[in-house]
């Protein structure tokens, strides 16, 4: 056992020395390899984080949201409408919600203004999400004015900033008192934006929706599950495009690695011959090259993954923005919550490190099994 460890130490020593000798070639390889891992890991981290984010968004939303349609378009819900729903079995709570979008021309971003039901905001005060805190440099106690759609200026005092649990949920939120909300948007008295219904039993959601359509033919119930599915398919579709591009990249990399490895230089072949002649077993040579491949791919993996992590969670995935963030119009600017998934890392590791190591070993194996007497002849 001790001898075995000592042997591996020797092999690694030699591997490091021999890697250092071909610096240019190995750095080039490391770079391309790392780049591949970087792109793959970025996509994986990004889509995974988005999906988690979306789930968090929807987890806080009611099972059913009821909108009223006028001429096929979303319209306000007039007073008395909610009462018309009556009692439906399974519905635990129904309440009208007041919210709307506001375009801030100063920073060219959309905010969601909302008068919350579960939270008290004093008149003249607002509670803002982290995105506003950043873009407008707000902190508790500051004052801020918004020009309403009717042209008047409304000034609010920031009472608090929402915690940064999930940015997608709260980034662009501006919470205010109902009276302030109505005044700001000139929202008609008694009207609400939509109705939120909580249904405890997931099996009953469909039934409740059907009954709602019966009771209120001009309404459109939106089920949370459907939204979830839509999100999922949007993500999957985008991921699909990326993956298609990536598989092309992987293929190219495979060919590159194969060529690099298969085109063992005469020098390398000579070295393998020498090692065999002076008493290395075929297995020793292969192990040495295995360490070499493993070191390169591990290093590339680490570098690529770390770079991807920084890219996605600290630099807002700038490189992917055009492809992946078509929907960011809804959610102006946000930082994803850092998240690493073990299985995802394992998968990525398997699909990058394993093929390379294998691709390197095959030609080495061929070279290493040739007869050692060839070194006797220059």
């Amino acid at each position, binding site marked *: 056992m001790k001898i075995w460890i000592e042997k591996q130490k020797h092999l690694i020593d030699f591997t490091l020395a021999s890697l250092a000798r071909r610096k240019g070639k190995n750095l080039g390889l490391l770079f391309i390899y790392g780049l591949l891992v970087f792109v793959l890991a970025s996509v994986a981290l990004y889509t995974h984080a988005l999906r988690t984010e979306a789930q968090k968004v929807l987890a806080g939303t009611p099972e059913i949201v009821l909108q009223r349609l006028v001429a096929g378009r979303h319209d306000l819900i007039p007073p008395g409408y909610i009462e018309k729903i009556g009692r439906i079995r399974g519905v635990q709570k129904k309440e009208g919600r007041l919210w709307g979008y506001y375009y801030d021309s100063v920073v060219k971003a959309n905010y969601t203004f909302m008068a919350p039901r579960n939270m008290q905001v004093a008149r003249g005060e607002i509670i803002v999400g982290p995105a506003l805190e950043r873009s407008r440099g707000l902190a508790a106690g500051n004052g801020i004015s918004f020009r309403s759609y009717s042209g008047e200026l409304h000034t609010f005092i920031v009472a608090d900033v929402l915690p940064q649990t999930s940015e997608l949920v709260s980034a662009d939120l501006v919470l205010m008192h109902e009276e302030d909300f109505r005044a700001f948007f000139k929202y008609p008295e008694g009207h609400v934006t939509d109705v939120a219904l909580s249904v405890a039993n997931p099996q009953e959601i469909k039934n409740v929706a059907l009954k709602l359509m019966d009771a209120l033919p001009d309404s459109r119930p939106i089920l949370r599950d459907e939204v979830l599915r839509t999100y999922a398919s949007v993500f999957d579709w985008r991921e699909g495009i990326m993956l298609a591009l990536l598989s092309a990249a992987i293929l190219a990399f495979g060919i590159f690695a194969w060529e690099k490895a298969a085109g063992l230089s005469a020098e390398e072949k000579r070295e393998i011959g*020498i090692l*065999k002649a*002076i008493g290395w077993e075929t297995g020793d040579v292969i192990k040495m090259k295995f360490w070499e491949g493993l070191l390169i791919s591990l290093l590339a993996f680490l570098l690529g993954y770390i770079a991807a992590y920084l890219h996605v969670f600290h630099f807002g995935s700038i490189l992917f923005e055009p492809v992946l963030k078509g929907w960011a119009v809804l959610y102006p600017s946000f930082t994803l919550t850092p998240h690493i998934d073990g299985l995802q890392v394992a998968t990525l590791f398997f699909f990058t490190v394993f093929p390379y190591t294998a691709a390197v070993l095959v030609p080495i194996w061929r070279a290493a099994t040739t*007869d050692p007497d060839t070194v006797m002849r220059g």
Partner: protein
Amino acid sequence: MLELTQIRKAFNQGKHNEYWALAGIDLAIPEKQVTALRGPSGSGKTTLLTILGCLARPTEGRVRLKGEDISGLPERFLTEIRRQTFGFIFQQFNLIRGLSAIENVVLPAYPTGRPRKELLEKAEALLADVNLGHRREAKVEWLSGGEQQRVAICRALINDPEVLIADEPTANLDTRLAGEFLGILEGLADKGRTIILTSHDPMVVESEIVNFIVTLRDGKIVEQ
């Protein structure tokens, strides 16, 4: 020490360019002696050396090492025998470029799993013996031909082999360096190593340190 009986070696056997480089060799290499193989170019000296040193297997015939038949052993065992029993000095030295002298010297010992510290001490002592102690960290491609050969000698000795095998050891050296080489060889022979070498060089073959001369021609021994 080493006994060959009816050794024949074919290259490209069964193909149109089949060539018998050795055509029936019977030879006994005495222990702790210096044996020189000579003969015209193409007579099969190197080929014979590869068989003696377990670098290659004969097509026909038997090789016995200390009485034990090793011609039928699988590759793995041959490698182990090669590592334990033989040290090689190649004509082109065959050092690994980019590595330092001392790293080259310890290479044959890696598969033995001996601790690195011990190996480095041993290698240092060997290099000092051939007056190369001060060049141990130099990359081998910066060394002169004579220095390279001395590194190669140290490498051949790191596993303390009983038999040293050298193919045309002086072919790349001038007379002075060849003389130095013979001096080193003499020291090794005196310490009781078995040495087998091939050479065209009369200076080597006719020197007094050589105890036995074997002359080859067309793959056969013509004089012994």
